[in-house]
């Protein structure tokens, strides 16, 4: 069943067109990853899907009663606002202590109920955001570059957590990322975005697509596109891979 779909979205930020003619759909239990360079409109797309931005053209359709668990790229909490982790988990509606504890555990955290949000480390903070999103009992979990600011082991373990969550509660996951090599292996579908949809399909199809290679192959000297695929195609020059 399709939970969420967008038809021919055109979105402007101010006068600047950021997205043009973007269509996508998300089915139950799917993991879909949106990849694209900086400024390609990934966050804008997610924010349009949750209703924070109104598209110039096109429309977003959600099945009635769809619950979305949204994990933003970053969340700044003003120093003047005191809030404990426990209270933060109660934001949308009050949850029982047991549920709160379960959500923290599912997000890979111990009990830091009484800690102020402001004192958490970057990784802990993102996991609390994940725990809060899980407490919405979401049909769709949306994550906007959730591992920004985490080091590589940190983001790898964050993604493992998300796969575990998907297996546990079976929600669909729509994720934005630039860490292609980590994300792609877990995705059912990858959408390559650069203002418009360049290409989409299974990770293998996308990584072989010329549009994808063009986007990630140039400027990085091929480093990003090659990272995962350095064994599935032949190079036309001679060198040895290290490591």
């Amino acid at each position: 069943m399709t939970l969420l779909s967008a038809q021919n979205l055109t979105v402007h930020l101010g006068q600047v067109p950021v997205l043009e003619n973007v269509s996508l759909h998300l089915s139950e239990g799917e993991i879909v990853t949106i990849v694209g360079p900086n400024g390609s409109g990934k966050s804008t797309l997610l924010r349009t899907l949750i209703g924070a931005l109104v598209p110039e053209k096109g429309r977003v359709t959600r099945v009635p009663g769809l619950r979305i668990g949204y994990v933003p790229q970053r969340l700044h909490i003003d120093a003047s606002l005191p809030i404990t982790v426990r209270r933060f988990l109660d934001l949308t509606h009050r949850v029982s202590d047991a549920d709160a504890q379960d959500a923290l555990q599912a997000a890979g955290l111990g009990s830091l109920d009484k800690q102020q949000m402001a004192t958490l480390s970057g990784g802990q903070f993102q996991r609390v955001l994940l725990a809060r999103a899980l407490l919405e009992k979401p049909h769709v979990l949306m994550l906007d570059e959730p591992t920004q600011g985490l080091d590589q082991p940190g983001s790898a373990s964050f993604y493992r957590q998300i796969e575990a969550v998907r297996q546990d509660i079976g929600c669909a996951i729509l994720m934005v990322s630039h860490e292609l090599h980590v994300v792609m292996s877990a995705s059912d579908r990858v959408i390559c975005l650069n203002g418009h949809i360049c290409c989409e399909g299974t990770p293998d199809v996308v990584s072989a697509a010329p549009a994808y290679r063009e986007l990630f192959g140039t400027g990085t000297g091929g480093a990003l596109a090659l990272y995962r695929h350095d064994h599935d195609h032949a190079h036309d020059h001679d060198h040895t891979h290290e490591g």
Partner: protein
Amino acid sequence: MLDDFLVRAALASVGTAVGAGALGCFVVWRRMAYFGDAMAHAAILGVAISLGFSLSIYIGVSVIAVAVALLFLGLTGRGHSADATLGVIAHGGLALGIVAVAMMPGQRLSLESYLFGSVLTVSPTDVMVIWAGAAGIVTVLWYRWAALLMTTLSPDLAHASGFHPRREELVLTLLLALVVAVAIKVVGALLITALLIVPASAARMLVRTPEAMAVVSVVIGCVAALVGLRMAMTFDTPVGPTMVCVAVGCFACITLLRGMRRA
């Protein structure tokens, strides 16, 4: 009971402290202090309009406070910076209001009472209007608390959870206009923002959750109102500014005590 002017003054002050103390938390969290200032200062223009057309002060002040909010949204939407826009509105409204009142025969004295407050002259009707306003503010905050708090933390999170952050922001703006209308007779236009900011900022140092901050802020506001009124009687000082002095005193004591405990 309402026959005694001191009882009326105490009731009016406490009512104002309750409304301002609770809403003040949002003003602090959202950094709207200067916005509140602009509304309060421009309210003098509302006073002038009310005196000119023999309207209730509460109507003139509320209308101007809402007009300030709309004007602000309109101007910042056209690319003016928020800071400068608020400065223009605040001082433009204040100056225009003072000039307008000065041109009305026999009203110069009443102007001062709206700039600095005159809680000792509130009527039983004033007390009822103030308490109705305070009750309205607390009721709206109570029922919309989750939506308002989430909007303050992150409009995107609020959207994703099915709230309407733009509507909640409008609610906060209207409540702020209501506080200005309620407080202008008690502390006067120049010090209204102090009742919003000072108790909430003092409360911030003592609490761990947003709800506790609202409650403690109301308590500190009420203490400042009653102690301030008492001290104003003893030392024969203007009531509104004395209340603000007590509130600032609370803020200073809490800051010092916390500093000593940490040292």
